[in-house]
Each structure stands twice: as C-alpha cells, then as structure tokens.
C-alpha cells in the first residue's frame, strides 16, 4: 500500500517535471505546444547515447540532456514557434502534431523503433526497506531531483525579478514592454527552461516511462491531463495534479488492473465536472 503510494508519488513528480514546461507555455504564452513531449524524448535519447555509447556518467548525462534540450528549445522557438504564437489554437495543434510525426520518423530512422534503456548506475537499482515501505533508490532519486526543481521553480516565479517580469509579460505583454521589459527575451528563456526540464524529465524518466519514438504521442495525453486538471495559473496546480495523477495511475493499475488505464481519465472527468477551470485555475480572463 505505502509502496504503491511511494511509487505513485515518484511517478507524479516525474510527470510534473515533464509537463511543467507545457503548463508554462500554455498558461503563460498561450501556446498549445503539443510537441512538448518531443523535447522530453530528445532528452532521453541524448542521455542514452551519451551514457550507453560514450561512457558519460549518468549524473553528467542528466544536466547535459537539460542543456541540449534547452538549446533545442531556443532554436525551435526562434525558427518555428515564433510563427504560430499569434495563430489560432487549431493551427498550433496541427503544426505540433505534424512536428511530432516528423520527429518520430527521424528518431525511428536513426535509432530504430525499439525500446531504449539507459544504463543507470547499479546502486540506483537497489530497493531497500524503510519503515516497512519498500523504497526504490531510483525513485527516491526522482523524488529528490524533481522536488528540488519544483521548489526552485516556485521560488524563481514568486521571489525573483525574472519571475515578476515573466508574470507581467504574461498578464499583458504590451504593458510589460511599456515598462522596459524585453518580453521576447523573457519568453525565449522561459521556453528554453521548459524544454530543458522536459529533456531532463525524459532522461530521468526513461527507466520508468520507457523510451522509444512514440514517446511524444504516448505521453501527450498525460501532459494534457496534468495541465487541464491543474490549471495553468500557477505551478502549484500542475504540481498537485501531477501527484494526484501519478498516485491514481499507479494505484489503479495495481488494484484494479482491468480498469487501471481508465482511472486517470475518470479522475480527470470528475475534477473537470467539479471545477471546469481546473483544480487551481483562475477564471478565464482571455
């Protein structure tokens, strides 16, 4: 029971790091970036290639995955996304779906369609008993890393100048520019961090979520549920939604295997009936 809760918790934390970039771009920049998962997959492959084939230590592979994906994010934002910011959401969705298929095909071509596994250090494969709970070392690492990221994000958004500038740019980019804020730069940095975190999540999560060319499509639905249930007004919403989703998914698949895959959808539907704007969403102002 507690073990399931722990696993679900770790899974939820991972989902948060994967999806928080999407929550930010959707909620803050009003961009439906369905291809967000492609950055996560890129992070997974970058880490896998470095660690498995070039002997880079796993703990160096993670930050490199972050940096590479953040850089990819900047390039994609400048070259691609900047053209669809002002387009309709349908255009954005179609664009992103197309992008996913292209990335999928490219990865398939170079790396093959099979599942990939990152060689993680042996000590991370251990499980140990703690107060009667069977704790996996790797999941403990996930909780530690993701928890740290969640806290840092919250601090950056609420306590720093960058955070207040970002919030201002989101509230009204015209006024923000009128206060001397370089809105384009703020958005670009934000997009980079969101993509980088997705890449880190993809690298960290390959062990649990799997890694193959269908990753962006397979997990898109999870990211969207996190964002819908959590709302995009803050990062607390997506964080709690991720935890709820992670625990519900793991518990559902364990206790009611026949129905397991539907548990998260049931949770989402119930939450949305109860609060259509999401658990922590603000009432739509746009």
């Amino acid at each position, binding site marked *: 029971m507690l073990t399931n809760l722990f696993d679900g918790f770790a899974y939820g934390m991972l989902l948060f790091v994967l999806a928080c970039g999407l929550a930010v771009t959707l909620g803050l920049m009003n961009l439906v970036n369905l291809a967000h998962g492609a950055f996560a997959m890129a992070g997974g492959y970058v880490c896998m290639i470095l660690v498995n084939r070039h002997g880079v230590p796993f703990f160096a592979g993670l930050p490199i995955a972050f940096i590479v994906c953040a850089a990819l994010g900047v390039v994609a934002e400048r070259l691609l996304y900047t053209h669809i910011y002002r387009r309709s959401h349908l255009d954005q969705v179609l664009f992103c779906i197309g992008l996913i298929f292209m990335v999928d095909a490219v990865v398939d071509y170079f790396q093959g369609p099979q599942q990939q596994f990152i060689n993680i250090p042996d000590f991370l494969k251990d499980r140990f008993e703690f107060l009667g709970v069977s704790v996996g070392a790797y999941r403990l690492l996930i909780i530690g890393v993701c928890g740290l990221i969640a806290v840092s994000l919250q601090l950056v958004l609420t306590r720093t100048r960058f955070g207040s500038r970002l919030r201002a740019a989101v509230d009204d980019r015209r*006024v923000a520019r009128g206060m*001397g804020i370089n809105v384009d730069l703020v958005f670009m940095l934000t997009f980079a961090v969101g993509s980088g975190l997705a890449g880190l999540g993809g690298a960290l999560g390959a062990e649990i979520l799997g890694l193959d060319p269908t990753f962006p499509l397979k997990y898109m639905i999870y990211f969207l549920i996190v964002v819908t249930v959590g709302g995009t007004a803050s990062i607390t919403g997506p964080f709690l939604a991720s935890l709820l989703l992670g625990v519900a998914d793991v518990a559902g698949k364990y206790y009611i295997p026949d129905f397991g895959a539907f548990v998260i959808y049931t949770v989402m539907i119930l939450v949305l009936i109860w609060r259509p704007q999401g658990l922590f969403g603000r009432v739509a102002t746009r």
Partner: protein
Amino acid sequence: MSDAPLSDAPRDIALQTVNLFRNFGGLTATNDVSLTLRRGERHALIGPNGAGKTTLINLLTGVLRPSSGRILLEGEDITEARADERVRRGLARTFQINQLFAAMTPLEGVGMAVSQTKGKGWEFWRSVGHSRPVIDEIVEVLDRFGLCDVMGEKISSLPYGKQRLLEIAMAIACRPRVLLLDEPAAGVPEGEREDILDVVAKLPEDVTVLLIEHDMDLVFRFASRISVLVSGALLTAGTVDEISTDPRVRAVYLGEADHG
C-alpha cells in the same frame, strides 16, 4: 553614449518626429506629422475620434513602425528601437488598461518598474526587495501618488481611480525624461477625478509630458502648448490661447466635442 544631435536640432528638444507617415493599406493613418516637444514642456495632443492619435502614440512608443519618417528622442534616432528599448532610453507611457496586472499588488508593480530602471535589471535572480535604494524609491513613488495605504492589495480590487493613479505611478517609476499620458482621466468617476488632475499637475518639472486627451477642461488646465491632429495630419500647433481661438480648430474639434 554620444549625445551628438543628428541635425541642427536645438539641445532643448526632448522628442521630435520628422515627416512621420504610417499607411495601413490604402489608409494614411499618420500623414506627414512633424511634432516637436521642448524639454520640460506640457504638451497636449488633441483631435476628434479617428484623427490618428492612437496610431501616433503607437509609433512613438514602438508598437508600430512608421512607413517613413524619423523619431528623435533628445536628438538620438529611435525610429528602429524596440518598445522596451525606448522605455530604457527614457520614453515611457501610461496605458489605459483596466485589468492592469490584476494579480499583482501596487508594491510589486511599482517595484518591478523601479528595479528595471535602477540599472540592476540584469540581477534577475535577486528579489526586488534586497536593495535599500530600490525600496526607498518604491516607497517614495507610492507615497507621491497616495498609494501607500493600498500597496499590498491586489490591483484588480482597487477602485478605478486608484488603478489609473497606479498606471501613472508605474510609468513615473520607469524614470522617463519624456512621458506620454494617455487619457489619464478617462472613465474615472467624478469623485476621484481631482486626485488624478492633482497628480498630473504635480508631475516632476524636468519630465517632458505629452498628454493625449479628449477632456478639454483638463487640456486647458494642464497644457502649455497644444497640437491638433485631424485625419492623421497636424492641423496646427500653438499655445492654449492660440488654439482655443483658432476658428479651424473650433470647426473640426471643439464643434464636435458634443459628439465625443
């Protein structure tokens, strides 16, 4: 920073447009506008609805690019500068926005503007409140605009008049040398109007102000010079007396004021 004037423009010119044009398709929204604001001047821009006032503000602040012509801020060409660069170079404006940063407090709003222009904007990871001079300046601005007692409340919950005051406070906190005031009293209920007019009258004297306004009462009380915009072009410019007695202005603008 070379301060060399591009033309033989006198040193006391704060903001100048030179033969400014802006076309939207076949429509000329700004038609050969050459506007000059002297340093420290209280200048009002008036014109009937559809005269192109909004387009002109957008050109001055960098939201729109002119089709041709130049804009000079203290002799330096800013025609190609981005909106946020112009603010950092000393040209700020107020916005007519009701939902101004609705979830922020006046303290945060003014704090952001102050920290942006205190030359420490690059210290983005620091919190606004870590530096004493920044705090002092925030308090001073809030105090000057009578916003101290509401500084911790959400902007969306403030009375409309206070929101308009805050808009001006945030623009002033950017430390502009030229300030564009966009209809500061529009929509403010009668009881709160005096506060706004007071604040506008007491703006620092070294700040050059361009007031864009419908309210002739406010214009005549505040402005030392007036420019009249009609159909995208400058009809005339002059002192309050000259403008108020100019029969052409009466015909195109004052005569239509009843419709406004």
